[in-house]
């Protein structure tokens, strides 16, 4: 499908670009072009996409590229975070009236959105929380809508209130609330008829119900497969009737569900539930992270990002541990390799130095002090050691040193000098870490011209 190739495209665009520290404007623009396509394919409204992408661009340019990610992936990471923030909200439950008061919930939405099914599902959900719901059949227009609700109610073992199809919905709603108060229900859910957001009379009907019945929560049910028009629907319902939350239906399909982003963007109202099937138990909480992943359709990139994040967390742990090892003078050649690897991941020694406070502008200056070639030699030497030798430098007898020199392609003198410098540094670390007064610096760490602290 087209979506997979979008991910691939993104990979290809950035294949030759290594992490370069910061995201440039070009990196961001290139990546966002693909993101834009993905969002549009997912049915996020064109205008929403435009605004969203612009906002992400502003945030992303100049940000640091995380270890293990290319610039494109870094942009995706930011996009994903922004989507989660945008779609998430602090409200995740239907707000209930306090105490014994009856909470009135009104369901609203277009025709065929899935209101009747959602009505029964919500009642089932509330039942598990000890609430006793009454479903009110206010759809007097669609043939057999009342019967459908009655059957669903029976299946869920929830009471249904109906007055046939000869009374006005507002009347039915009023009667239902009165009935609930008398019969010990603490929730009334009004199942209303599907209607077009541009149908003035039908929208007035909902306004009237809201006024006369004092509805506490109005939930908009939206088909997850809705296309570009979702913004119009959501805005009209919110402006004309006023909604408190959104239920996304038919999420068990394979739609990317971009409508969720559009709706949240135009209304700001929380998405409370996702309806996942025809079985009346299939109602789930809304998870913005899952939804973002689904809309973006770049699960593979996102899991890569996750991995990179994990490895950073892991690195942080390791480096903390390494500091401890240094203090104890236990810093061995394994640790040396690891520190070199981390340094490279972070963009090389010079970029690290550039980030250190007070060293800002002097990056180039400092860089000249670092002998990268020598560093490479040192690494080759260490890599030619066996794991045991790295862990326990005392094993290094002349025979082994000769073998290592051959393996690293350097003179034996280089190996000797390196090992000697290493042992000195190790001693100094121990002094320093042990609280004894050092000489102010670690001094002569191999490969650093003996001038830079490490």
């Amino acid at each position, binding site marked *: 499908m087209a979506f997979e190739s979008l991910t691939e495209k993104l990979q290809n665009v950035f294949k030759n670009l290594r992490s370069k520290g910061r995201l440039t404007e070009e990196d961001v623009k290139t990546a966002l072009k693909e993101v834009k396509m993905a969002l549009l394919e997912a049915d996020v409204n064109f205008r929403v996409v435009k605004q969203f992408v612009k*906002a992400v661009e502003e945030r992303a340019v100049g940000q640091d590229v995380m270890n293990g990610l290319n610039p494109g992936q870094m942009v995706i990471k930011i996009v994903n975070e922004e989507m989660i*923030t945008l779609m998430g909200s602090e409200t995740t439950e239907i707000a209930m009236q306090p105490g014994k008061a009856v909470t009135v919930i009104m369901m609203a939405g277009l*025709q065929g959105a899935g209101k009747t099914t959602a009505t029964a599902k919500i009642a089932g959900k509330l039942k598990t929380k000890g609430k006793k719901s009454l479903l009110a059949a206010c759809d007097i227009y669609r043939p057999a809508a009342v019967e459908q609700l009655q059957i669903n109610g029976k299946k869920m073992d929830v009471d249904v209130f109906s007055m046939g199809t000869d009374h006005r919905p507002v009347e039915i709603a009023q009667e239902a609330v009165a009935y609930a108060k008398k019969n010990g229900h603490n929730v009334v859910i009004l199942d209303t008829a599907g209607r077009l957001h541009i149908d003035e009379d039908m929208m007035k009907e909902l306004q009237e119900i809201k006024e006369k019945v004092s509805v506490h929560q109005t939930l908009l049910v939206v088909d997850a*497969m809705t296309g570009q*028009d979702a913004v119009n629907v959501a805005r009209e319902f919110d402006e004309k009737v006023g909604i408190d939350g959104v239920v996304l239906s038919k999420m068990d399909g394979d739609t990317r569900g971009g409508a969720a982003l559009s709706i949240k963007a135009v209304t700001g109202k929380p998405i409370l539930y996702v309806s996942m099937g025809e079985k009346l138990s299939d109602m789930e909480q809304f998870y913005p992270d899952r939804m973002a992943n689904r809309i973006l359709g770049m699960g593979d990139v996102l899991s890569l990002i996750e991995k990179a994040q994990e490895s950073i967390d892991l690195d942080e742990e390791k480096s903390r541990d390494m500091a401890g090892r240094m203090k104890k003078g236990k810093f061995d050649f394994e640790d040396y390799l690891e520190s070199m690897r981390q340094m490279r991941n972070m963009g090389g020694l010079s970029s690290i130095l550039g980030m250190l406070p007070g060293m800002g502008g002097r990056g180039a200056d400092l860089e000249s002090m670092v002998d990268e070639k020598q560093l490479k030699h040192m690494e080759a030497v260490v890599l030619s050691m066996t794991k045991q030798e790295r862990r326990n430098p005392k094993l290094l007898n002349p025979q082994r040193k000769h073998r290592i020199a051959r393996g690293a392609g350097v003179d034996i003198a280089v190996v000797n000098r390196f090992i000697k410098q290493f042992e000195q540094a190790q001693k100094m670390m121990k002094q320093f870490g042990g609280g004894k007064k050092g000489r102010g610096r670690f001094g002569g760490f191999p490969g650093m011209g003996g001038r830079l602290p490490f």
Partner: protein
Amino acid sequence: MSEEKKGFFARLKAGLAKTRDNIVRGIDSVFSGFSAIDDDFYEELEEILIMGDIGVNATTRIIERLRGQIRERHIKEPSECKQLLIEGIREQMRVDDTAYDFEKEQSVILVIGVNGVGKTTSVGKLAGKLKDQGKKVLIAAADTFRAAAGDQLAEWARRAEVPMVGGNEGADPASVVFDAVNAAKARGVDVLLIDTAGRLHNKKNLMEELRKINRIIDREYPGVHRENLIVLDGTTGQNALVQAREFGEVADLTGIILTKMDGTAKGGIAVAIQSELNVPVKYIGVGETIDDLQKFNSDDFVNALFEI
């Protein structure tokens, strides 16, 4: 929410509010607002097409084709470009004269689609339409799954004044179809309309059930004119293309009923479906009464798409 995040959200909302009045905007403003055919111009065209749910891929194809034509014919005027674009889509969407041949023969119309798109309503409207033409119509209620589906269709049968078979909740839909086909043959019915349960195309067993139903009709009624109409909600986005593809896998589609075209959605996904799967729109639904079904007219469709 942190201050920064709020800012981001507020920006997005404000941006939308600003453009809200333009959301439904005619192509005329695009064409008249441009004096030259440049990148901005193409971008605006793209926006209109995508906002109509035509989708990124089909839009890209359409724009590419347009660019080619403009180069070939040395067109410089945006207004000429407009004509080309509109005509291209209009031609593509035009229905063959043979599209409604089923009206002249004995036929079985199987109506399928995902949940809530308007299958039952469309069956009712079609029954009314055909009955008005003097046809002998029979309706089969093969949605034995959804609560009160049979009652709903029975009401439509009453409105259309045609008989209905099946409709018992829990019955085997395949056997309802088997019985209906044989009843149609026995009674010399002109058109048998079959309403099926809504099913999402990614539910394997439900799709297999449909395949079986389709086979039963073929087997039980060889030589009858077959129509397999998929009902698509005009409000649906790109998923409608997947729906058409997947339903076409289990039952060859002969046409689309595009519903809820009385709303503000444009149903542009039908353009993508037409170009990718070559399935024509045959009817559009424009409301909830029995008369709210029209034969598809590509002129009207294109005019609505571009709001002219």
